């Protein structure tokens, strides 16, 4: 039994925005796999909840006419992993979604909730950072569009204003077409575990043997998920070989702000960043049509 003082279920986005506008202190609940657990542990008390669960339109995944892929904030990790459009166009997001929790959690937890909770270990974040995902937010004042890199402010804090609702996550075609990608989640267990480190790499090639673009997103490597800009700039137009891949791994560490926690020390995390960035990159290269590097 949770202590819920007040509760409302929105039927539409407009409905949800109205309720939020008149009750700015209310918590939004979607899948509930984070919020209910916080309540269970006594971190929140006597809450008022606005449930989005009945807003079916927020759960859709579709391709807009301009080839943008739009993912409804209420899409569950299972929805994403099973969606043919995402499997075809952004398989690296499927790979990341499948590392989250176990089957029961994946069928409840939503991508919008994963983002809005703002935790550094969010499994969707490294990939969405690498994909330059754009977030659509709605409130009484209208619509606001924010790049995901600007949305994460600090651990547990995102740029979600009172009365605002995350409605869609957009991936534009220049950010997914012709890219090969790979997500590696480093954990102690294969399921139901929180990442010690998450590494997402996507890359595009120039011909067969040169890097076009490389993008590296890291989770749990700093107070928020982050991108490895130095490594990405270094990679531009470089010939693909053992040496350049090793340099990219080293450069990735420079963008990270890893710290020591009970899960792992700073030094261990930095070692993981260097090593796993290289491993993910090698797989991403083959998936982008390049040759295998030993």
């Amino acid at each position, binding site marked *: *039994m949770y*202590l*819920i003082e007040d509760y409302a279920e929105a039927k539409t986005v407009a409905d949800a925005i109205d309720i939020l506008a008149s009750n700015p202190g209310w918590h939004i609940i979607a899948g*509930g796999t984070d919020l209910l657990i916080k309540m*269970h*542990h006594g971190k929140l008390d006597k809450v008022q909840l606005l449930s989005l669960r009945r807003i079916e339109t927020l759960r859709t995944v579709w391709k807009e006419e301009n080839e943008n892929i739009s993912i409804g904030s209420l899409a569950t990790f299972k929805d994403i992993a099973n969606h043919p459009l995402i499997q075809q166009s952004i398989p690296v997001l499927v790979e990341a979604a499948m590392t989250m*929790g176990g089957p029961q959690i994946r069928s*409840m937890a939503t991508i919008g909730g994963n983002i809005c909770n703002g935790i550094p270990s969010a499994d969707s974040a490294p990939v969405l950072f690498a994909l330059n995902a754009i977030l659509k937010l709605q409130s009484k004042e209208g619509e606001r569009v924010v790049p995901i890199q600007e949305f994460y402010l600090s651990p547990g804090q995102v740029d979600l204003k009172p009365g605002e609702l995350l409605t869609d996550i957009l991936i534009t075609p220049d950010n997914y077409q012709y890219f090969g990608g790979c997500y590696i989640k480093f954990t102690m267990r294969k*399921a139901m575990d929180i990442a010690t480190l998450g590494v997402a790499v996507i890359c595009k090639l120039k011909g067969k043997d040169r890097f076009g673009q490389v993008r590296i997103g890291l989770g749990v490597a700093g107070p928020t998920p982050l991108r490895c800009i130095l490594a990405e700039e270094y990679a531009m137009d470089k010939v693909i070989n053992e040496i350049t891949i090793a340099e990219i791994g080293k450069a990735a560490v420079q963008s990270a702000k890893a710290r020591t926690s009970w899960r792992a020390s700073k030094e261990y995390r930095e070692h993981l960043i260097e090593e796993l960035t290289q491993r993910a990159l090698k797989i991403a290269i083959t998936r982008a049509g390049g040759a295998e590097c030993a």
Partner: protein
Amino acid sequence: MLKKINFTVNGKTESMEIDVGETLLEILRERLHLTGVKKGCAVGECGACTVLIDGTPTNSCIYLAVWADGREIVTVEGIAKGGVLSKLQKAFIAEGAIQCGYCTPGFVVTGTAMVESGKHYSREEVKQELAGHLCRCTGYQNIIRAVMKALKQ
């Protein structure tokens, strides 16, 4: 805050007034006395409380009862038909896939969804599908064998 909900449990229509803070797990156990649904961790990690909601294995400990309005719930009590165990339940017995038994209802519920899906699962996929269940007696090998057996039949 009270709310009235209507839902079906193991094929029977139920209608009741609940507090919005109550979980589906609590309603099933304490009001409907379906005590095969077990409370383990209460935070969605162990899978002992798993029930089918519209056919999907779901942790009832982190599922508010109010969300069950209009849904179809199946608990472990609803899996045997007319007193006859399902082939999965028989496989659990044949393979000795039970030690203390506390995790068994959850495994049986998820395993039933797998058998009823008609899909083919490799051993690795079976392990993946069962990853949301903990067996603290660590009797996983027999459980996996039982599910594989029922899937093959």
